[in-house]
């Protein structure tokens, strides 16, 4: 099962490596990991996408909680939640393909940034599933470079994670 664990982390040097070290040392999967400061400058918010059965996820949460730099955490997939990922894809596009590409991108609420006569960058944000779908729709084009941000997310109810 796929889980999204949202972690409030003390904004200390080395905090990120404590988390990534824990995952590698104990053999836990990381599908993606994002981290950035929050509105409280002393805290960063980390979003980890991982997989495992209930017992493993329970252990991951407990082991994360043991880290002194972890202030709070929540598996947001246990309730209603919002997940977003940004994708940037640089593609080769001929003038004949341009209109079709514009239609696809519009359908995904994305945007197109022109790089040159033959290349442009597709930009879109959405759930990982939506990003996968967009990339499937671009299958007929040559993707030169792809950058995905990894998932970030929030619970979609009135609860909030606080330190």
């Amino acid at each position, binding site marked *: 099962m796929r889980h999204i664990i949202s972690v409030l982390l*003390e904004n200390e*040097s*080395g905090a990120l*490596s*404590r988390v990534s*070290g824990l995952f590698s*040392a104990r053999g836990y999967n990381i599908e993606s990991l994002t981290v950035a400061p929050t509105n409280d400058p002393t805290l960063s918010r980390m979003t980890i996408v991982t997989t495992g059965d209930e*017992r493993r996820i*329970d*252990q991951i949460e*407990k*082991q994360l*909680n*043991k880290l*002194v*730099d*972890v*202030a709070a955490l929540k598996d947001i997939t246990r309730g209603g939640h919002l997940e977003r990922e940004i994708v940037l894809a640089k593609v080769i596009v001929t003038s004949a393909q341009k209109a079709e590409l514009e239609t696809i991108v519009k359908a995904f609420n994305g945007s197109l940034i022109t790089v040159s006569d033959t290349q442009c960058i597709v930009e879109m944000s959405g759930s990982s599933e939506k990003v996968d779908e967009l990339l499937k729709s671009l299958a007929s084009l040559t993707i030169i470079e792809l950058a995905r941000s990894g998932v970030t997310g929030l619970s979609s109810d009135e609860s909030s994670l606080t*330190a």
Partner: protein
Amino acid sequence: MQLTGADIVVKSLEKEGVEFVFGYPGGAALHIYDAFHRQNEVEHILVRHEQGATHAADGYARSTGKPGVVLVTSGPGITNAVTGIATAYMDSIPMVVLSGQVMKPLIGYDAFQEIDAVGISRPCVKHNFLIQDVEEIAETIKKAFHIATTGRPGPVLVDIPKDITAQVAEFLYPESVEMRSYPEPATAQPSEIVTAVEAMLNAKRPVVYTGGGVVLAHAQEGLRDMVKTLGFPCTNTLMGLGAYPHDDPQFIGMLGMHGTYEANMTMFESDLIIALGARFDDRITGTLDNFAPNAKVIHVDIDPSVIDKNIKADIPIVADVKEVINAFNAELGRRREDINPSLIANWWEKIRAWQGLDSFWYEKSDTIIKPQFVVEKLHEVTGGEAYVTSDVGQHQMFAAQFYGFSDTHKWINSGGLGTMGFGLPSALGVKIAHRDADVACITGEGSIQMCIQELATCKQYDLPVKVINLNNRYLGMVRQWQEFSYEKRYSNSYMDSLPDFVALAEAYGHVGMQIDKPGDVEGALREAFAMKDRLVFMDFITDQQENVYPMIESGKGHSEMRMRPGSASLAE
């Protein structure tokens, strides 16, 4: 008061009530060493290798319950200390390690003796810090002691760049620290206590299984009351020995790989396991496939991550084990009339029958020294009152099986990491804290050579420990596994070119003895322990073929112990 960073370090230790620091100087730590030279409050013990410093601090901590403190330099200083830090981490021992670091402007430039101490120690510390500013030193040291000694204890490293120890700041040692990300440990809910006690009162085949947590929490008295009140059998892990007296009729011995047959069978057939400050590690459980198939599990631990890690708990209680045991006793007091000894009478009959097999039985000899015999005699000669440290291997298991402990904090061994080289330096750490007590280091000719240089530290600080070297000219436990699992292909387990240990001990200024006849064992021990002010290195030439029995072999479970050939169980 304006002080240098180095003086702040030492003053902070003084404020923490630190008596001894075990360490070894080097470039990046020299300002701190200079500060030690200016004061008399905290005594620095100069070891001969940084691994020795950590084990000595560890022995000090295990025997006193106070945190052990280590000071090393950067680079090789801290890398040498890593083994001892990991040893303390695996056994949840409170320790604060201070390491010098290269000057801050040089960090990241591969300076002389530079290593990322925070990075290299991260997997084996409870937490660590790199100090960035002289103003942070006092508060960081306060935090380090707080983290090391509260909750589930463990080692904490504080890495201090050299230039910062020369800078000056106002010294104000905080009375307390608050860390929002390091909350107070959880406490038990009254309903959890009631539920657990209800399960105890209804059990027909219960067992109390206790580990190092009971020792760390100083919960032995409450445990003894609880076990007496209930009339239940009690088993201790390797780390938990001494929590319940070895000679009490309700004690069924150590459990696990080399535990008693009765302890493992009791676990296997139980209907209720009351696990107190123990973590169901693989050396305790054997294979998990058929672990105590009919048992309900009450699991009490201060660390939530050990609950449901290996064994699913039916009644988990996350709290300080001492408080929980006291709460159990209070609840049992209220329900005294519901305790029904007849409910477990059949259970005890079964246990007594298992005990009848005498699973630690070994064949006595009057021609060759059996290692078990030496440990039994050591118990006699010391009245079972000695602090006993050990290294790792067969001798460690013989010590655990045959010494017979009645008190906590007296059996000191590396249970989790299994670190050879632990015995001698940990013994010197114990002796520093308990000058008037007998301290014995039970070791083997393999392990002792891993930290034998600490004989010099013992000489310098007048620490007359007794070294019991069970010398079978083999890495005995390796040899045993090779005999059982590798068709006696003894690959690299024979120790050739051993030193003359008697001469070696004497070269270090100590007394050396070699004993090769069973008839001389007791007399030699009495002679050695009578020399109160001398370190005596006793080289016992023991049976080369002796194995540790009984044994749960790899992949086997509690009910599948391999017994000693010729023992009662097989003769039946």
